[in-house]
């Protein structure tokens, strides 16, 4: 294991401390390290729906990097790859509440769902109305009664941006939830790993992936994917990720889409653009208009090499909300 860390126990608190210091113009850390979260420097925005997300650490910049004007109000980092407990989620929910209620943006993993559920109950007991959107965009996972359902992956980033803009323009809690639901319904993702990642506490790679083999349908927690295949050219891998997305999304010629190529943390951006190039050509060949794009490391798995592709079908409203100004550590425009 090779990492720029001190004690594995201190990875999350030290990293968050540095993160808050580096971005102190827009975010603050919680006072109590026992209920660790980050939130907007100015505090809750009165009258605005608060947006709170969170989950295990190791996916940076998700979620802390998306706290700021036009996006989240607070983010709760758990231990690496481990959902945070209800206490800090509750504390973040309180910090994000401007009197108009709070939306929990939860990636669909059993741990995240259960801990956010409990926090929402506790918030309810303190008279803070909470609704939750459970993001489940990963087409690598069969969505059936016999699984935990699809995982939440790349679509989460797009949803946080778009729902954040809806809250910022003054939508009420139900309206923000409706926008979030629309995004979740229209977004699909799939990922590939070239190498495994190493959880600091485990000290060993999360799985063994020999030279010449790659994992298709990988998640963001270093879980093995659905299948292992021989290494292949980027264009072929791109097809393997894109085909299930296109099928599931049922894109029609003339649809506007946002194409998001995400790096898993250890892949150079030059490679992401090679994937983007072919994915874009495929989408355009279908008659789809790639009207918005995002390429980079936005939802990662520590130092894993690999990428995921996310396609979001846009309409006028979601396009406008995507374009709205945003000022967070990891996503910024118009401000």
């Amino acid at each position, binding site marked *: 294991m090779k990492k720029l860390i001190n004690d594995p126990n201190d990875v999350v608190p030290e990293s968050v401390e540095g993160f808050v210091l580096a971005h102190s113009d827009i975010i603050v850390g919680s006072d109590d390290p026992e209920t660790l979260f980050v939130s907007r420097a100015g505090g809750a925005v009165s009258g605005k729906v608060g947006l709170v997300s969170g989950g*295990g650490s190791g996916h940076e910049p998700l979620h802390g990097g998306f706290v700021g004007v036009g996006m989240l109000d607070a983010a709760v980092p758990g231990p690496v790859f481990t959902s945070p407990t209800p206490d800090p989620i509750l504390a973040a929910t309180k910090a994000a509440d401007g009197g108009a209620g709070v939306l929990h943006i939860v990636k669909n993993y059993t741990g995240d769902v259960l801990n956010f559920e409990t926090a929402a109950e506790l918030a309810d007991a303190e008279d803070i109305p909470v609704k939750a959107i459970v993001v489940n965009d990963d087409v690598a996972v069969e969505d059936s009664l016999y699984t935990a359902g699809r995982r939440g992956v790349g679509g989460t980033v797009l949803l946080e941006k778009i729902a954040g803009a809806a809250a910022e323009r003054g939508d009420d809690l139900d309206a923000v939830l409706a926008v979030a639901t629309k995004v979740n319904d229209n977004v699909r993702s799939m990922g590939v790993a070239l190498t495994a990642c190493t959880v600091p506490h*485990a000290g060993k790679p999360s799985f063994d992936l020999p030279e010449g083999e790659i994992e298709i349908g990988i998640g963001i927690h270093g*879980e*093995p994917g659905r299948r292992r295949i021989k290494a292949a050219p980027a264009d072929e891998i791109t097809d393997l990720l894109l085909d299930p997305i296109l099928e599931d999304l049922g894109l029609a010629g003339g649809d506007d889409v946002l194409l998001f190529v995400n790096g898993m943390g250890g892949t150079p951006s030059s490679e992401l653009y090679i994937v983007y190039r072919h994915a874009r050509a495929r989408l355009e060949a279908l008659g789809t208009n790639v009207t918005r794009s995002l390429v980079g490391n936005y939802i990662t798995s520590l130092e894993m090499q690999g990428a995921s592709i996310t396609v979001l079908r846009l309409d006028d409203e979601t396009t406008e909300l995507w374009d709205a100004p945003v000022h967070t550590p990891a996503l910024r425009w118009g401000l």
Partner: protein
Amino acid sequence: MTTVGVDWALDWVRCSAAVVTEHREELIDLDRAIGDGDHGENMHRGYRILLEKLDGFEAATVGDVLKLVATTLMSKVGGAAGPLYGTAFLRGAKAADSADLDAAGVAAVLAAGVEGVVARGKAEVGDKTMVDAWHPAAAAAQEVADSGGSAGEALRAAADAARAGAESTEPLVARKGRASYLGERAIGHRDPGAQSSALLLEAAAAAAGA
């Protein structure tokens, strides 16, 4: 022991902390294989803090101890296991509001625990989760109670059944939790949560000298 009481409950916590520490890496490795590699660390963190809290803790009933376990695991473990174990111990605590438990009392605690896990996690036996350890354990304890056995015997039967239950997860495809994403690739691997449940129940029996 015919009955087990507060001292047993406190010992259970201490024995649990010891086995969880001892098996930390094993649980990490099981979770690396079909999950995300944190289960051993999560349990270890929870029980380390729990041990600290035990210092000077005053309990009148077994339930008081189990409630401390519940709230600590709930607020310190995180992931899927934290809320599930938290709920299990919370329900178990409610079923154990007396100073001493006989075999029927033990069985009632375990049954309440399983119900808690199922209520939160919606898993059934055979879904390759901790339910596969807790469910046979509760049933085995009930059998001992029905046939007039002691609390210690009930705990021993529960521990044995839990170990068998954990082993029984190996050939299964998972239908709940993170391992469910793997489909057929989960076959051949033991479920980490079932394994930690078996370890905790073994600690319960050991604490009773059974």
